[in-house]
């Protein structure tokens, strides 16, 4: 017995913005015959392919690993390739990701995020002395061994696909432009927890800088919307704890060397 694909016509409302022609963003409605197994992305692609080729949106993998297709669907940040169109009634309101400047239609400006992202040093940092020593030393097989238990400590936080739904959900990101934000802090924390990394002090300095992790008010919205169960709220609040320990250590033992 095959299941039938039913088609229902829904009104898809898309935010439109052409920087050359529009003063500010506006809404445009489309009548879309949605098949029952469609995702929201399929509906948007249908609009672009069959109705209005001027609609611009980002998408790529169609399987929730590239992080490109994030949009606000009826006010909630979603990966549109992962969200069933049948979760919604006859009116679906699709807007660009909240809290980001809008470049065109459903496409948002990502430079701000990239800057925050880079600022937390999201790579393995090794102590300076050792790096200099390696340059002059006879080359040896350079592997940093890591046990399964050590990997388990940070693995969850490494699953981020940079879809930025968490930035759209976070009330602090909406109101404090300096705040580093969930994904950047979670990634920095992922490296702090990595046994191969020696850059924790440097990252904690950044965590206590202008983009301070303490701005987080633990709304937990970021973790609610994360499609990969990274739980950035846990990372940010663990990072606060780490920053306090670092601060306390700094009171007792003045920091030398890496200044």
């Amino acid at each position, binding site marked *: 017995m095959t299941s039938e694909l039913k088609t229902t016509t829904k009104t898809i409302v898309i935010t439109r913005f052409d*920087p050359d022609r529009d003063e500010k963003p506006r809404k445009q409605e489309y009548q879309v015959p949605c098949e029952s197994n469609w995702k929201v992305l399929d509906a948007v692609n249908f609009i672009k392919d069959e109705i209005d080729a001027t609609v611009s949106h980002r998408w790529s993998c169609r399987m929730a690993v590239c992080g490109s297709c994030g949009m606000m669907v009826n006010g909630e940040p979603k990966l549109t390739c992962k969200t069933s169109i049948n979760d919604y009634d006859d009116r679906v309101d699709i807007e660009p990701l*909240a809290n980001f400047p809008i470049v065109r239609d459903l496409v948002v400006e990502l430079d701000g995020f990239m800057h925050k992202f880079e600022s937390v040093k999201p790579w393995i940092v090794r102590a300076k002395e050792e790096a200099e020593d390696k340059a002059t030393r006879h080359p040896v097989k350079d592997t940093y061994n890591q046990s399964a238990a050590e990997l388990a400590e940070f693995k969850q936080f490494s699953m981020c696909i940079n879809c930025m739904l968490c930035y759209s959900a976070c009330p602090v990101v909406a109101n404090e432009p300096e705040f580093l934000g969930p994904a950047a802090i979670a990634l920095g924390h992922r490296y702090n927890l990595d046994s191969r990394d020696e850059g924790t002090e440097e990252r904690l300095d950044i965590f206590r800088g202008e983009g301070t992790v303490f701005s987080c008010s633990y*709304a937990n919205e970021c973790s609610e919307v994360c499609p990969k169960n990274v739980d950035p709220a846990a990372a940010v609040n663990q990072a606060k704890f780490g920053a306090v320990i670092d601060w306390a250590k700094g009171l007792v033992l003045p920091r030398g060397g890496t200044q």
Partner: protein
Amino acid sequence: MAGPAHPDAMAPRKPGRTRTAPPQTPASWWGSSRIRTYLLFDATGIIYFLVGFLAIGLISDLGNGPIAWHRALERLGNPIYIAFHVLSLAAVIFVAVRFFRLFPKAQPPRIGPVAPPPGPVIHVTLYVVWIGITVLMTAILAGVIF
């Protein structure tokens, strides 16, 4: 041997080249029940402030002798104060329930060489300690023990 390409090749986009529309928050954000719960959680801060200052006033009266203390207790009998304290109790319970849910996952995987207990253990322990302290304090303040 590689030679230099133009120093500005593939340079990050300079601001102002394309006009962008300012960031938006969806209209339905304020209506979301999750968001309203969170805003309520923050709003309990006002209640904690008020309860705190009220309690400071009370202890101040206690330090001023029996007449001041008894007048303070009489003031607490005013229905407005009682209503406020009923609201405060609800607020404190609401804060506890939400905080106990969020607290366990904020523990780092290791503090030095020691791993904290698993999340569910912490969660239950928090409730046990909370109820224990509340029962103890209620019993002492109500004159049941001591």
